[in-house]
Protein backbone atom coordinates (compact mmCIF):
# COMPACT_ATOMS: atom_id res chain seq x y z
CA UNK A 1 0.00 0.00 0.00
CA UNK A 2 2.76 2.39 1.00
CA UNK A 3 4.62 1.83 -2.25
CA UNK A 4 1.43 2.62 -4.18
CA UNK A 5 1.03 5.95 -2.39
CA UNK A 6 4.70 6.73 -2.80
CA UNK A 7 4.69 5.96 -6.52
CA UNK A 8 1.52 7.97 -6.96
CA UNK A 9 2.92 11.17 -5.44
CA UNK A 10 6.32 10.63 -6.96
CA UNK A 11 5.01 10.43 -10.49
CA UNK A 12 2.64 13.36 -10.09
CA UNK A 13 4.94 15.86 -8.40
CA UNK A 14 8.56 14.72 -8.33
CA UNK A 15 8.93 12.98 -11.68
CA UNK A 16 6.32 15.15 -13.36
CA UNK A 17 6.22 14.33 -17.07
CA UNK A 18 6.41 17.97 -18.12
CA UNK A 19 8.47 19.67 -15.43
CA UNK A 20 10.99 16.96 -14.62
CA UNK A 21 11.47 15.19 -17.92
CA UNK A 22 10.01 17.77 -20.34
CA UNK A 23 8.06 15.14 -22.25
CA UNK A 24 4.89 15.74 -24.19
CA UNK A 25 5.83 19.34 -24.86
CA UNK A 26 4.29 19.62 -28.33
CA UNK A 27 0.66 19.23 -27.35
CA UNK A 28 1.39 20.87 -23.98
CA UNK A 29 2.46 24.02 -25.81
CA UNK A 30 -0.09 23.87 -28.61
CA UNK A 31 -3.34 23.05 -26.83
CA UNK A 32 -2.84 25.16 -23.72
CA UNK A 33 -4.47 28.37 -24.92
CA UNK A 34 -7.80 27.65 -23.23
CA UNK A 35 -8.52 25.87 -19.99
CA UNK A 36 -11.48 23.88 -21.33
CA UNK A 37 -9.60 22.29 -24.22
CA UNK A 38 -6.58 21.72 -22.02
CA UNK A 39 -8.79 19.81 -19.58
CA UNK A 40 -10.16 17.72 -22.46
CA UNK A 41 -6.74 16.83 -23.77
CA UNK A 42 -5.41 16.24 -20.28
CA UNK A 43 -8.24 13.82 -19.54
CA UNK A 44 -7.55 11.98 -22.80
CA UNK A 45 -3.87 11.69 -21.89
CA UNK A 46 -4.72 10.36 -18.43
CA UNK A 47 -6.98 7.75 -20.00
CA UNK A 48 -4.50 6.67 -22.66
CA UNK A 49 -1.61 6.48 -20.20
CA UNK A 50 -3.66 4.59 -17.61
CA UNK A 51 -4.63 1.99 -20.21
CA UNK A 52 -1.47 1.67 -22.27
CA UNK A 53 1.04 1.39 -19.45
CA UNK A 54 -0.54 -1.75 -17.87
CA UNK A 55 -1.21 -3.28 -21.31
CA UNK A 56 2.39 -2.66 -22.30
CA UNK A 57 3.45 -4.05 -18.95
CA UNK A 58 1.72 -7.33 -19.86
CA UNK A 59 3.37 -7.28 -23.29
CA UNK A 60 6.72 -6.62 -21.70
CA UNK A 61 6.34 -9.36 -19.11
CA UNK A 62 4.99 -12.10 -21.32
CA UNK A 63 6.42 -11.39 -24.79
CA UNK A 64 9.23 -8.88 -24.91
CA UNK A 65 11.55 -9.40 -21.97
CA UNK A 66 14.44 -11.83 -22.32
CA UNK A 67 13.00 -15.16 -21.32
CA UNK A 68 9.42 -13.83 -21.24
CA UNK A 69 8.22 -16.45 -23.67
CA UNK A 70 8.85 -19.25 -21.18
CA UNK A 71 5.11 -19.84 -20.85
CA UNK A 72 5.05 -21.12 -24.47
CA UNK A 73 7.40 -23.93 -23.62
CA UNK A 74 10.94 -24.56 -22.52
CA UNK A 75 12.39 -24.19 -26.02
CA UNK A 76 11.34 -20.51 -26.16
CA UNK A 77 12.97 -19.64 -22.83
CA UNK A 78 16.07 -17.96 -24.29
CA UNK A 79 14.29 -15.74 -26.81
CA UNK A 80 14.83 -11.99 -26.33
CA UNK A 81 12.31 -9.88 -28.20
CA UNK A 82 13.02 -6.58 -26.45
CA UNK A 83 14.13 -5.04 -29.75
CA UNK A 84 10.42 -5.08 -30.63
CA UNK A 85 9.50 -2.86 -27.64
CA UNK A 86 9.07 0.36 -29.58
CA UNK A 87 6.85 -1.01 -32.30
CA UNK A 88 4.73 -3.07 -29.92
CA UNK A 89 4.27 -0.18 -27.51
CA UNK A 90 3.39 2.20 -30.31
CA UNK A 91 0.88 -0.28 -31.70
CA UNK A 92 -0.90 -0.45 -28.34
CA UNK A 93 -0.84 3.31 -28.01
CA UNK A 94 -2.17 3.91 -31.52
CA UNK A 95 -5.01 1.48 -30.91
CA UNK A 96 -5.96 3.17 -27.66
CA UNK A 97 -5.83 6.60 -29.24
CA UNK A 98 -8.11 5.46 -32.04
CA UNK A 99 -10.52 4.25 -29.41
CA UNK A 100 -10.40 7.56 -27.57
CA UNK A 101 -10.91 9.44 -30.80
CA UNK A 102 -14.03 7.47 -31.69
CA UNK A 103 -15.46 7.95 -28.21
CA UNK A 104 -14.73 11.67 -28.09
CA UNK A 105 -16.14 12.26 -31.57
CA UNK A 106 -19.31 10.43 -30.64
CA UNK A 107 -19.95 12.00 -27.25
CA UNK A 108 -18.34 15.44 -27.41
CA UNK A 109 -18.14 16.83 -30.94
CA UNK A 110 -17.26 20.29 -29.59
CA UNK A 111 -14.19 19.01 -27.79
CA UNK A 112 -13.34 16.88 -30.82
CA UNK A 113 -13.31 19.95 -33.02
CA UNK A 114 -11.33 22.12 -30.62
CA UNK A 115 -8.68 19.46 -30.08
CA UNK A 116 -8.38 19.05 -33.83
CA UNK A 117 -5.29 17.29 -35.02
CA UNK A 118 -3.87 17.01 -31.51
CA UNK A 119 -6.22 14.20 -30.53
CA UNK A 120 -4.87 11.67 -33.06
CA UNK A 121 -1.44 13.12 -32.37
CA UNK A 122 -1.61 11.81 -28.79
CA UNK A 123 -0.44 8.60 -30.46
CA UNK A 124 2.93 10.21 -31.06
CA UNK A 125 2.91 12.23 -27.84
CA UNK A 126 6.25 11.44 -26.28
CA UNK A 127 4.74 11.51 -22.78
CA UNK A 128 2.68 8.42 -23.63
CA UNK A 129 5.51 6.40 -25.13
CA UNK A 130 7.75 7.80 -22.41
CA UNK A 131 5.36 6.41 -19.79
CA UNK A 132 5.64 2.92 -21.24
CA UNK A 133 9.40 3.11 -21.69
CA UNK A 134 9.95 4.42 -18.16
CA UNK A 135 7.76 1.59 -16.95
CA UNK A 136 10.07 -0.83 -18.77
CA UNK A 137 13.36 0.74 -17.71
CA UNK A 138 12.35 1.23 -14.07
CA UNK A 139 11.24 -2.41 -13.94
CA UNK A 140 7.93 -1.77 -12.24
CA UNK A 141 7.19 -5.07 -10.51
CA UNK A 142 3.41 -5.55 -10.72
CA UNK A 143 0.51 -4.70 -13.01
CA UNK A 144 -1.17 -2.79 -10.19
CA UNK A 145 1.84 -0.53 -9.86
CA UNK A 146 2.04 -0.19 -13.64
CA UNK A 147 -1.56 1.01 -13.74
CA UNK A 148 -0.82 3.34 -10.84
CA UNK A 149 2.23 4.68 -12.65
CA UNK A 150 0.31 5.32 -15.87
CA UNK A 151 -2.57 6.98 -14.07
CA UNK A 152 -0.43 9.22 -11.88
CA UNK A 153 1.92 10.28 -14.69
CA UNK A 154 -1.20 11.20 -16.64
CA UNK A 155 -2.51 13.22 -13.70
CA UNK A 156 0.84 14.98 -13.45
CA UNK A 157 0.69 15.92 -17.12
CA UNK A 158 -2.94 16.98 -16.69
CA UNK A 159 -2.03 19.29 -13.80
CA UNK A 160 0.77 20.81 -15.83
CA UNK A 161 -1.35 21.60 -18.86
CA UNK A 162 -4.19 22.82 -16.64
CA UNK A 163 -1.91 25.24 -14.79
CA UNK A 164 -0.25 26.58 -17.93
CA UNK A 165 -3.61 27.01 -19.65
CA UNK A 166 -4.93 29.05 -16.72
CA UNK A 167 -1.74 31.12 -16.68
CA UNK A 168 -1.93 31.72 -20.43
CA UNK A 169 -5.53 32.84 -20.07
CA UNK A 170 -4.41 35.19 -17.31
CA UNK A 171 -1.52 36.72 -19.25
CA UNK A 172 -3.59 37.20 -22.38
CA UNK A 173 -3.82 40.91 -21.60
CA UNK A 174 -0.24 41.29 -20.42
CA UNK A 175 2.02 43.56 -22.35
CA UNK A 176 4.53 40.88 -23.27
CA UNK A 177 7.40 42.17 -25.45
CA UNK A 178 6.56 41.43 -29.09
CA UNK A 179 9.36 38.93 -29.84
CA UNK A 180 8.34 36.79 -26.89
CA UNK A 181 4.62 36.61 -27.55
CA UNK A 182 3.14 33.15 -28.02
CA UNK A 183 5.49 30.24 -27.64
CA UNK A 184 8.44 32.23 -26.33
CA UNK A 185 6.70 33.38 -23.19
CA UNK A 186 5.13 29.93 -22.78
CA UNK A 187 8.56 28.36 -22.64
CA UNK A 188 9.68 30.92 -20.07
CA UNK A 189 6.56 30.28 -17.99
CA UNK A 190 7.18 26.54 -18.18
CA UNK A 191 10.69 27.07 -16.89
CA UNK A 192 9.42 29.20 -14.00
CA UNK A 193 6.74 26.62 -13.23
CA UNK A 194 9.43 23.96 -13.13
CA UNK A 195 11.16 26.03 -10.41
CA UNK A 196 7.91 25.87 -8.46
CA UNK A 197 7.77 22.11 -8.92
CA UNK A 198 11.37 21.73 -7.79
CA UNK A 199 10.04 22.10 -4.25
CA UNK A 200 9.28 18.40 -4.33
CA UNK A 201 12.61 17.36 -5.79
CA UNK A 202 14.49 15.22 -3.31
CA UNK A 203 11.41 14.50 -1.26
CA UNK A 204 10.99 10.81 -0.37
CA UNK A 205 14.34 9.83 -1.88
CA UNK A 206 16.88 12.16 -3.43
CA UNK A 207 17.52 14.52 -0.53
CA UNK A 208 19.59 12.15 1.54
CA UNK A 209 21.79 11.12 -1.31
CA UNK A 210 22.37 14.72 -2.29
CA UNK A 211 23.33 15.66 1.26
CA UNK A 212 25.69 12.71 1.48
CA UNK A 213 27.40 13.62 -1.76
CA UNK A 214 27.80 17.18 -0.54
CA UNK A 215 29.34 16.01 2.71
CA UNK A 216 31.74 13.80 0.81
CA UNK A 217 32.87 16.54 -1.53
CA UNK A 218 33.28 18.86 1.45
CA UNK A 219 35.54 16.31 3.10
CA UNK A 220 37.56 15.91 -0.05
CA UNK A 221 37.94 19.66 -0.24
CA UNK A 222 39.16 19.98 3.34
CA UNK A 223 41.66 17.20 2.77
CA UNK A 224 42.85 18.98 -0.37
CA UNK A 225 43.19 22.24 1.52
CA UNK A 226 45.12 20.53 4.29
CA UNK A 227 47.63 19.08 1.87
CA UNK A 228 47.92 22.39 0.09
CA UNK A 229 48.65 24.15 3.35
CA UNK A 230 51.26 21.61 4.27
CA UNK A 231 52.88 22.06 0.89
CA UNK A 232 52.81 25.83 1.31
CA UNK A 233 54.38 25.55 4.77
CA UNK A 234 57.05 23.24 3.45
CA UNK A 235 58.02 25.58 0.66
CA UNK A 236 58.22 28.44 3.18
CA UNK A 237 60.55 26.42 5.38
CA UNK A 238 62.68 25.58 2.37
CA UNK A 239 63.01 29.19 1.40
Amino acid at each position, binding site marked *: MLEHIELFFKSIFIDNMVFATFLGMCSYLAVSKKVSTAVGLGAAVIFVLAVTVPVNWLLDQYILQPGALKWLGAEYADYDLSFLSFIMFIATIATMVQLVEIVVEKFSPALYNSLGIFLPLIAVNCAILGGSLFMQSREIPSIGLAFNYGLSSGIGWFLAILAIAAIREKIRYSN*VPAPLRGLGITFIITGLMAIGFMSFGGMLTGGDEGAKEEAETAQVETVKKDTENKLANNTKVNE
Partner: protein
Amino acid sequence: MSLKSTLHNLKEKYKGTKMAPAFNALHTFLYLPNDTTHGGTHIKAADDLKRTMNTVIMALIPCLIFGMFNAGYQHYHALGTPVDFLSWDSFSIGLIKVLPLIIVSYGVGLGIEFLFAIIKGHEVEEGYLVTGMLVPLIVPIDLPLWMLAVAVAFGVVIGKEVFGGTGMNILNPALTIRAFLFFAYPTWMSGDKVWVHGAVERANEIASGANVDVISGETILGSLAQGNGAGYSVADMFYGFIPGSVGETSTFLILLGGLFLIFTKIGSWRIMLSSVLGALVMGLIFNSVVDAGWVTVSSKFYGLMSTEFWHHLLIGGFAFGTVFMATDPVTASQTNKGKWIYGFLVGFISILIRVFNPAYPEGVMLAILLMNVFAPTIDHYVVQGNVKKRMKRLKAKTA
Protein backbone atom coordinates in the same frame (compact mmCIF):
# COMPACT_ATOMS: atom_id res chain seq x y z
CA MET B 1 15.82 76.46 -5.64
CA SER B 2 14.13 73.64 -3.79
CA LEU B 3 14.60 69.99 -4.67
CA LYS B 4 11.05 69.79 -5.81
CA SER B 5 11.31 72.54 -8.37
CA THR B 6 14.71 71.28 -9.53
CA LEU B 7 13.20 67.90 -10.19
CA HIS B 8 10.22 69.53 -11.83
CA ASN B 9 12.45 71.59 -14.11
CA LEU B 10 14.49 68.53 -15.02
CA LYS B 11 11.30 66.70 -15.81
CA GLU B 12 10.07 69.52 -18.02
CA LYS B 13 13.44 69.77 -19.72
CA TYR B 14 13.48 66.12 -20.74
CA LYS B 15 9.80 65.97 -21.62
CA GLY B 16 9.26 64.01 -24.82
CA THR B 17 12.78 62.61 -24.90
CA LYS B 18 13.75 59.01 -24.28
CA MET B 19 14.95 59.79 -20.78
CA ALA B 20 11.64 61.31 -19.71
CA PRO B 21 10.33 58.30 -17.73
CA ALA B 22 13.41 58.25 -15.52
CA PHE B 23 13.05 61.87 -14.38
CA ASN B 24 9.32 61.53 -14.15
CA ALA B 25 9.72 58.58 -11.81
CA LEU B 26 12.16 60.44 -9.57
CA HIS B 27 9.84 63.41 -9.35
CA THR B 28 6.65 61.54 -8.62
CA PHE B 29 8.33 59.19 -6.20
CA LEU B 30 9.19 62.06 -3.93
CA TYR B 31 6.48 64.62 -4.62
CA LEU B 32 3.03 65.10 -6.00
CA PRO B 33 2.88 66.52 -9.54
CA ASN B 34 2.98 70.33 -9.73
CA ASP B 35 -0.02 70.71 -11.94
CA THR B 36 -3.56 69.49 -11.39
CA THR B 37 -5.92 68.19 -14.01
CA HIS B 38 -8.53 70.55 -15.41
CA GLY B 39 -12.04 69.78 -16.54
CA GLY B 40 -13.97 66.55 -16.38
CA THR B 41 -14.80 64.53 -13.31
CA HIS B 42 -12.01 63.05 -11.23
CA ILE B 43 -11.86 60.57 -8.45
CA LYS B 44 -9.32 61.50 -5.84
CA ALA B 45 -7.74 58.49 -4.17
CA ALA B 46 -4.66 58.42 -2.04
CA ASP B 47 -3.78 54.79 -2.60
CA ASP B 48 -1.98 54.73 -5.90
CA LEU B 49 0.66 52.12 -6.55
CA LYS B 50 3.45 54.17 -4.99
CA ARG B 51 1.58 54.64 -1.71
CA THR B 52 0.65 50.96 -1.66
CA MET B 53 4.26 49.98 -2.08
CA ASN B 54 5.40 52.48 0.51
CA THR B 55 2.89 51.10 3.00
CA VAL B 56 4.34 47.63 2.62
CA ILE B 57 7.85 49.03 3.05
CA MET B 58 6.72 50.80 6.22
CA ALA B 59 5.45 47.45 7.51
CA LEU B 60 8.83 45.95 6.70
CA ILE B 61 10.98 48.61 8.39
CA PRO B 62 10.62 47.23 11.96
CA CYS B 63 11.69 43.79 10.74
CA LEU B 64 14.66 45.36 8.97
CA ILE B 65 15.87 47.33 12.00
CA PHE B 66 15.35 44.39 14.29
CA GLY B 67 17.16 42.17 11.79
CA MET B 68 20.18 44.48 11.83
CA PHE B 69 20.41 44.32 15.62
CA ASN B 70 19.87 40.58 15.55
CA ALA B 71 22.56 39.99 12.93
CA GLY B 72 25.22 41.47 15.17
CA TYR B 73 23.74 39.92 18.28
CA GLN B 74 23.84 36.45 16.75
CA HIS B 75 27.33 37.06 15.43
CA TYR B 76 28.77 37.90 18.87
CA HIS B 77 26.63 35.24 20.47
CA ALA B 78 28.09 32.60 18.17
CA LEU B 79 31.60 33.93 18.79
CA GLY B 80 31.06 33.31 22.47
CA THR B 81 31.37 36.98 23.44
CA PRO B 82 27.73 37.99 23.84
CA VAL B 83 26.91 41.70 23.76
CA ASP B 84 23.68 43.44 24.70
CA PHE B 85 21.00 43.15 22.09
CA LEU B 86 20.35 46.89 21.89
CA SER B 87 23.96 47.95 21.58
CA TRP B 88 25.92 49.79 18.95
CA ASP B 89 28.18 46.74 18.60
CA SER B 90 25.39 44.52 17.39
CA PHE B 91 23.73 47.19 15.30
CA SER B 92 26.90 48.25 13.52
CA ILE B 93 27.61 44.71 12.30
CA GLY B 94 24.09 44.44 10.98
CA LEU B 95 24.32 47.85 9.35
CA ILE B 96 27.62 47.07 7.63
CA LYS B 97 26.37 43.75 6.33
CA VAL B 98 22.77 44.57 5.46
CA LEU B 99 23.13 48.01 3.93
CA PRO B 100 25.23 46.81 0.96
CA LEU B 101 22.64 44.11 0.29
CA ILE B 102 19.91 46.74 0.18
CA ILE B 103 21.95 49.04 -2.03
CA VAL B 104 22.83 46.29 -4.51
CA SER B 105 19.29 44.98 -4.56
CA TYR B 106 17.79 48.40 -5.24
CA GLY B 107 20.60 49.54 -7.52
CA VAL B 108 20.48 46.56 -9.87
CA GLY B 109 16.71 46.11 -9.75
CA LEU B 110 15.75 49.73 -10.23
CA GLY B 111 18.49 50.14 -12.83
CA ILE B 112 16.90 47.41 -14.90
CA GLU B 113 13.45 48.86 -14.35
CA PHE B 114 14.61 52.30 -15.52
CA LEU B 115 16.35 50.75 -18.52
CA PHE B 116 13.25 48.85 -19.57
CA ALA B 117 11.05 51.89 -19.06
CA ILE B 118 13.30 53.99 -21.28
CA ILE B 119 13.57 51.34 -23.99
CA LYS B 120 9.89 50.54 -23.98
CA GLY B 121 8.91 54.17 -23.54
CA HIS B 122 6.52 53.83 -20.64
CA GLU B 123 6.56 55.24 -17.14
CA VAL B 124 8.81 53.56 -14.59
CA GLU B 125 6.73 51.07 -12.65
CA GLU B 126 6.84 50.95 -8.89
CA GLY B 127 6.68 47.19 -8.52
CA TYR B 128 10.32 46.84 -7.60
CA LEU B 129 10.09 49.05 -4.51
CA VAL B 130 8.78 46.25 -2.31
CA THR B 131 10.73 43.47 -4.01
CA GLY B 132 13.95 45.38 -3.52
CA MET B 133 13.25 45.62 0.20
CA LEU B 134 12.13 42.01 0.56
CA VAL B 135 15.20 40.54 -1.09
CA PRO B 136 17.83 41.64 1.47
CA LEU B 137 15.52 40.41 4.21
CA ILE B 138 15.37 36.83 2.94
CA VAL B 139 18.92 36.09 1.83
CA PRO B 140 21.82 34.95 4.03
CA ILE B 141 23.68 37.92 5.43
CA ASP B 142 27.11 36.90 4.11
CA LEU B 143 25.91 36.37 0.55
CA PRO B 144 28.47 37.75 -1.94
CA LEU B 145 27.08 40.89 -3.54
CA TRP B 146 27.73 39.81 -7.12
CA MET B 147 25.56 36.73 -6.59
CA LEU B 148 22.79 38.94 -5.33
CA ALA B 149 23.21 41.19 -8.39
CA VAL B 150 23.01 38.24 -10.80
CA ALA B 151 19.96 36.86 -9.06
CA VAL B 152 18.21 40.22 -8.98
CA ALA B 153 18.87 40.68 -12.69
CA PHE B 154 17.42 37.25 -13.38
CA GLY B 155 14.40 37.81 -11.16
CA VAL B 156 13.55 41.20 -12.59
CA VAL B 157 14.12 40.35 -16.25
CA ILE B 158 12.88 36.75 -16.51
CA GLY B 159 10.51 36.87 -13.57
CA LYS B 160 8.84 40.15 -14.38
CA GLU B 161 9.88 42.23 -17.37
CA VAL B 162 9.33 39.51 -19.97
CA PHE B 163 5.71 39.41 -18.87
CA GLY B 164 5.32 43.12 -19.43
CA GLY B 165 6.36 44.48 -16.04
CA THR B 166 4.63 45.14 -12.76
CA GLY B 167 1.30 43.44 -12.28
CA MET B 168 1.76 40.93 -15.08
CA ASN B 169 4.19 38.45 -13.54
CA ILE B 170 3.09 34.99 -12.47
CA LEU B 171 5.69 34.27 -9.79
CA ASN B 172 6.57 36.57 -6.93
CA PRO B 173 9.80 38.31 -8.08
CA ALA B 174 11.41 38.33 -4.62
CA LEU B 175 10.88 34.61 -4.31
CA THR B 176 12.05 34.04 -7.87
CA ILE B 177 15.28 35.79 -6.92
CA ARG B 178 15.66 33.70 -3.81
CA ALA B 179 14.82 30.48 -5.63
CA PHE B 180 17.40 31.35 -8.28
CA LEU B 181 20.03 31.87 -5.60
CA PHE B 182 18.93 28.71 -3.87
CA PHE B 183 19.30 26.48 -6.91
CA ALA B 184 22.27 28.25 -8.48
CA TYR B 185 24.48 28.73 -5.41
CA PRO B 186 23.25 26.10 -2.95
CA THR B 187 26.39 26.21 -0.80
CA TRP B 188 25.75 29.85 -0.02
CA MET B 189 22.06 29.43 0.59
CA SER B 190 21.65 26.37 2.78
CA GLY B 191 23.41 24.49 5.48
CA ASP B 192 24.00 25.32 9.09
CA LYS B 193 26.57 28.04 8.59
CA VAL B 194 25.16 30.66 6.28
CA TRP B 195 22.71 32.42 8.57
CA VAL B 196 25.15 34.01 11.00
CA HIS B 197 27.69 36.60 9.92
CA GLY B 198 31.20 35.24 9.92
CA ALA B 199 30.31 31.58 10.36
CA VAL B 200 31.27 30.58 6.84
CA GLU B 201 34.53 32.50 6.92
CA ARG B 202 35.36 31.00 10.27
CA ALA B 203 34.67 27.49 8.99
CA ASN B 204 37.03 28.15 6.09
CA GLU B 205 39.70 29.46 8.43
CA ILE B 206 39.43 26.34 10.52
CA ALA B 207 39.57 24.19 7.43
CA SER B 208 42.78 25.97 6.42
CA GLY B 209 44.33 25.25 9.77
CA ALA B 210 43.76 28.43 11.79
CA ASN B 211 43.44 27.89 15.50
CA VAL B 212 40.09 29.51 16.29
CA ASP B 213 36.82 28.38 17.84
CA VAL B 214 34.04 27.01 15.69
CA ILE B 215 30.98 29.16 15.20
CA SER B 216 27.78 27.27 14.85
CA GLY B 217 25.06 29.29 13.25
CA GLU B 218 22.61 26.49 13.10
CA THR B 219 18.98 27.47 12.67
CA ILE B 220 16.25 25.95 14.73
CA LEU B 221 14.89 24.07 11.75
CA GLY B 222 18.25 22.49 11.14
CA SER B 223 18.72 21.36 14.71
CA LEU B 224 15.13 20.10 14.91
CA ALA B 225 15.61 18.08 11.74
CA GLN B 226 18.55 16.35 13.39
CA GLY B 227 16.44 15.65 16.45
CA ASN B 228 18.41 17.95 18.74
CA GLY B 229 15.46 19.98 19.97
CA ALA B 230 14.94 23.67 19.35
CA GLY B 231 17.50 24.95 21.85
CA TYR B 232 15.64 28.25 22.24
CA SER B 233 12.70 29.20 24.41
CA VAL B 234 9.32 29.94 22.90
CA ALA B 235 9.68 33.59 23.84
CA ASP B 236 13.00 33.81 22.04
CA MET B 237 11.43 32.29 18.95
CA PHE B 238 8.45 34.62 19.15
CA TYR B 239 10.42 37.82 19.64
CA GLY B 240 13.12 36.68 17.24
CA PHE B 241 16.39 36.33 19.15
CA ILE B 242 17.31 33.38 16.95
CA PRO B 243 19.59 32.84 13.96
CA GLY B 244 17.98 33.21 10.57
CA SER B 245 17.88 35.55 7.62
CA VAL B 246 17.62 39.25 8.39
CA GLY B 247 13.88 39.78 8.25
CA GLU B 248 12.34 36.51 9.18
CA THR B 249 13.29 35.91 12.80
CA SER B 250 10.93 38.11 14.75
CA THR B 251 7.44 36.67 14.53
CA PHE B 252 6.26 39.44 16.82
CA LEU B 253 7.28 42.29 14.50
CA ILE B 254 6.03 40.41 11.46
CA LEU B 255 2.71 40.05 13.24
CA LEU B 256 2.64 43.81 13.85
CA GLY B 257 3.50 44.40 10.19
CA GLY B 258 0.77 42.00 9.16
CA LEU B 259 -1.81 43.76 11.33
CA PHE B 260 -0.73 47.06 9.82
CA LEU B 261 -1.19 45.65 6.31
CA ILE B 262 -4.61 44.27 7.21
CA PHE B 263 -5.62 47.56 8.85
CA THR B 264 -4.61 49.53 5.74
CA LYS B 265 -6.36 46.89 3.61
CA ILE B 266 -3.25 46.26 1.57
CA GLY B 267 -2.55 42.71 2.65
CA SER B 268 -5.30 40.14 2.39
CA TRP B 269 -6.36 38.84 5.82
CA ARG B 270 -7.98 35.88 4.11
CA ILE B 271 -4.65 34.62 2.78
CA MET B 272 -2.82 35.22 6.05
CA LEU B 273 -5.50 33.53 8.16
CA SER B 274 -6.04 30.56 5.87
CA SER B 275 -2.33 29.97 5.48
CA VAL B 276 -1.89 29.91 9.26
CA LEU B 277 -4.81 27.49 9.41
CA GLY B 278 -3.24 25.30 6.75
CA ALA B 279 0.04 25.18 8.63
CA LEU B 280 -1.71 24.34 11.90
CA VAL B 281 -3.73 21.56 10.28
CA MET B 282 -0.63 20.01 8.75
CA GLY B 283 1.24 20.36 12.05
CA LEU B 284 -1.65 18.69 13.90
CA ILE B 285 -1.67 15.83 11.41
CA PHE B 286 2.04 15.26 11.97
CA ASN B 287 1.62 15.50 15.75
CA SER B 288 -1.19 12.97 15.75
CA VAL B 289 0.80 10.62 13.52
CA VAL B 290 3.58 10.78 16.10
CA ASP B 291 1.13 10.32 18.98
CA ALA B 292 -0.39 7.30 17.29
CA GLY B 293 3.06 5.75 17.32
CA TRP B 294 3.40 5.31 13.54
CA VAL B 295 6.62 7.25 13.52
CA THR B 296 9.27 6.37 16.05
CA VAL B 297 12.36 8.19 17.25
CA SER B 298 14.47 6.24 14.79
CA SER B 299 12.75 7.90 11.80
CA LYS B 300 14.68 10.77 10.28
CA PHE B 301 11.48 12.81 10.16
CA TYR B 302 10.78 12.35 13.87
CA GLY B 303 12.45 15.57 15.01
CA LEU B 304 10.35 17.88 12.89
CA MET B 305 7.20 15.78 13.02
CA SER B 306 7.10 15.77 16.78
CA THR B 307 7.58 19.53 17.02
CA GLU B 308 4.49 20.98 18.62
CA PHE B 309 2.22 22.09 15.81
CA TRP B 310 2.08 25.76 16.72
CA HIS B 311 5.85 26.07 17.02
CA HIS B 312 5.98 25.77 13.25
CA LEU B 313 4.48 29.24 13.01
CA LEU B 314 7.34 30.74 15.01
CA ILE B 315 10.37 29.15 13.41
CA GLY B 316 11.86 29.51 9.97
CA GLY B 317 10.48 31.89 7.42
CA PHE B 318 6.87 30.84 7.71
CA ALA B 319 5.49 34.02 9.28
CA PHE B 320 7.46 36.30 6.98
CA GLY B 321 6.45 34.40 3.85
CA THR B 322 2.81 34.29 4.84
CA VAL B 323 2.50 37.97 5.68
CA PHE B 324 4.68 39.61 3.06
CA MET B 325 4.94 37.22 0.14
CA ALA B 326 1.93 34.95 -0.04
CA THR B 327 -0.22 38.09 0.04
CA ASP B 328 1.41 39.62 -3.04
CA PRO B 329 -1.72 40.86 -4.83
CA VAL B 330 -0.33 40.12 -8.29
CA THR B 331 0.61 36.49 -7.92
CA ALA B 332 -1.91 35.34 -5.32
CA SER B 333 -5.43 34.29 -6.15
CA GLN B 334 -7.66 37.22 -6.99
CA THR B 335 -11.04 35.86 -5.92
CA ASN B 336 -12.08 35.72 -2.28
CA LYS B 337 -12.89 32.04 -2.27
CA GLY B 338 -9.70 31.41 -4.22
CA LYS B 339 -7.71 33.26 -1.56
CA TRP B 340 -8.91 30.86 1.13
CA ILE B 341 -7.91 27.82 -0.92
CA TYR B 342 -4.62 29.38 -2.00
CA GLY B 343 -3.64 30.43 1.51
CA PHE B 344 -4.61 27.13 3.04
CA LEU B 345 -2.52 25.21 0.53
CA VAL B 346 0.44 27.56 1.04
CA GLY B 347 0.47 26.80 4.76
CA PHE B 348 -0.23 23.12 4.27
CA ILE B 349 2.49 22.55 1.67
CA SER B 350 5.03 24.73 3.55
CA ILE B 351 4.97 22.47 6.55
CA LEU B 352 4.81 19.37 4.36
CA ILE B 353 7.98 20.35 2.50
CA ARG B 354 9.65 21.53 5.68
CA VAL B 355 9.16 18.15 7.34
CA PHE B 356 9.45 15.71 4.47
CA ASN B 357 12.04 17.30 2.25
CA PRO B 358 15.40 17.17 3.99
CA ALA B 359 17.04 18.92 1.05
CA TYR B 360 14.97 22.09 1.37
CA PRO B 361 14.34 22.93 5.00
CA GLU B 362 12.80 26.24 4.02
CA GLY B 363 9.55 25.04 2.54
CA VAL B 364 7.70 28.34 2.63
CA MET B 365 9.45 29.86 -0.36
CA LEU B 366 8.85 26.82 -2.53
CA ALA B 367 5.28 26.34 -1.34
CA ILE B 368 4.43 29.93 -2.26
CA LEU B 369 6.08 29.57 -5.67
CA LEU B 370 4.16 26.36 -6.29
CA MET B 371 0.87 27.95 -5.32
CA ASN B 372 1.70 30.99 -7.47
CA VAL B 373 1.78 28.53 -10.36
CA PHE B 374 -1.65 27.19 -9.46
CA ALA B 375 -3.30 30.45 -8.40
CA PRO B 376 -4.71 31.18 -11.90
CA THR B 377 -6.16 27.66 -12.02
CA ILE B 378 -7.87 28.16 -8.67
CA ASP B 379 -9.24 31.49 -9.83
CA HIS B 380 -10.49 30.00 -13.07
CA TYR B 381 -12.52 27.36 -11.27
CA VAL B 382 -13.85 29.76 -8.66
CA VAL B 383 -15.07 32.06 -11.42
CA GLN B 384 -16.53 29.17 -13.42
CA GLY B 385 -18.29 27.90 -10.30
CA ASN B 386 -19.79 31.33 -9.78
CA VAL B 387 -20.93 31.50 -13.37
CA LYS B 388 -22.58 28.11 -13.08
CA LYS B 389 -24.32 29.08 -9.85
CA ARG B 390 -25.73 32.22 -11.40
CA MET B 391 -26.85 30.35 -14.51
CA LYS B 392 -28.74 27.96 -12.31
CA ARG B 393 -30.32 30.83 -10.40
CA LEU B 394 -31.30 32.48 -13.65
CA LYS B 395 -32.87 29.28 -14.89
CA ALA B 396 -34.79 28.85 -11.67
CA LYS B 397 -36.06 32.42 -11.93
CA THR B 398 -37.12 32.27 -15.57
CA ALA B 399 -38.59 28.79 -15.37
